[in-house]
């Protein structure tokens, strides 16, 4: 295939991934790597590099809007970034040692988990009861709800920190934002309100991805001629998705996206287990 045709097809696929990812809130990054490896025959390591770059673009683009609305908890973000960036550097160090077939299996499992979570209702528990470390670290905060400020306290700080470390490792190993794992840490363990956990998680994804992307740049994972159609496509799709979100039927789209994720998970598991990647 010529470079021009390849770039066009990859850009179109990435645009769809970014669009669906933004509309469903599941993030496009999770389908970029399977799409590149399974559909376009791209080497897993190049796919991970290109995906990480697109994750940084969408997260920074979205965070720019969120941060200014006052939902993001910058202290929680920085505190947890210590865990995610450490995890990301560990993941980047491990990536070179783990065979691509094992990475494909891990990817398949994370995709299955994402699909399963997308059908679980998210439960919000705003608490005023703070973990001692949350008070010590001044993590408790407030966010605007209907014109006034609602305060909230942060729970289970050590557990949240540990799970974020795992999210960082997965982000680096698989080239994803690992939003599902971050939500697990911030909603379920730390009991942050949705608006705060979603926006703070988004805020951190770019930093986490930048830690491993820096390492991967030096290792040659970031191939410019592959990364540009991926990055421009995903970013364009995500921007359009954010714009039409209010008018879209997200229930139906979520089902469609989840079905795509399950198919990709099966394929990644199969290829990983039979050594086809």
């Amino acid at each position, binding site marked *: *295939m*010529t*470079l*021009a045709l*390849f*770039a066009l097809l990859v850009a179109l696929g990435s645009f769809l991934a970014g669009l669906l990812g933004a509309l469903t809130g599941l993030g496009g990054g999770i389908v970029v790597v399977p799409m590149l490896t399974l559909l*376009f*025959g*791209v*080497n897993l*390591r*190049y796919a991970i590099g290109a995906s990480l*770059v697109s994750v*940084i*673009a969408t*997260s*920074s*683009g979205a*965070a*720019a*809007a*969120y*941060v*200014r609305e*006052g939902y993001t908890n*910058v202290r929680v973000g*920085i*505190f947890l*970034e*210590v865990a995610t*960036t450490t995890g*990301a*550097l560990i993941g*980047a*160090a491990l990536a070179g040692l783990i065979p691509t077939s094992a990475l494909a299996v891990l990817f398949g499992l994370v995709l299955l988990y994402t699909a399963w979570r997308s059908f679980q209702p998210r439960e919000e528990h705003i608490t005023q009861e703070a973990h001692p470390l949350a008070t010590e*670290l*001044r993590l408790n905060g407030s966010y605007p709800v209907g014109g006034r400020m609602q305060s909230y306290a942060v729970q289970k700080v050590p557990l949240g920190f540990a799970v974020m470390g795992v999210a960082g490792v997965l982000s680096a190993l698989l080239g994803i934002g690992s939003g599902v794992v971050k939500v697990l840490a911030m909603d379920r363990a730390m009991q942050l309100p949705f608006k705060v956990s979603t926006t703070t998680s988004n805020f951190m994804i*770019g*930093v986490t991805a*930048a*830690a*491993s*992307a*820096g*390492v991967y*740049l*030096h*290792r*040659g*994972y*970031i*191939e*410019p*001629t592959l*990364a*540009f*159609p991926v*990055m*421009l496509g995903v*970013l364009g799709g995500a921007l359009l998705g954010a714009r039409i979100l209010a008018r879209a039927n997200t229930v139906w789209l979520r089902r469609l996206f989840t079905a795509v994720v399950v198919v990709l998970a099966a394929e990644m598991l199969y290829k990983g287990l039979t050594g086809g990647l």
Partner: protein
Amino acid sequence: MTDERNLKRGRWSDHQVEQVIGRLLQIGVLLATAVVIVGAVGVLLHHGATPVSFRDFAGESSPWRSLGAVVHGAARGEFPAIVQLGLVLLIATPVARVALTLGAFAAQKDRLYVLLTAVVLALLLYGLIWGKA
């Protein structure tokens, strides 16, 4: 504390910091995207008809792996290097955000968060500059 009182003391409130961070992220992504597009157009015009395959990992033989090589290549007008420069700018955007946050915490004399932010910044720079994990 109100924003106004903070301003009189020459301090930044959390809210002001958030506004500046939001703007920085926007500028970083826009600038990086513009550079990537310039490089991409060049790559497509000059190498668009070349057959490509990304099946085999060339790894360390890729020429655009260090910041120095990328900057020099881009300065010579090599289009893949210009794309890579845009991608490096994109990777640097969250790093700049962390650096800015560090400055804001320092201005607020918040020692604990200066320390935590410095750790994050050090980890990021370690990855980006030395590239060994």
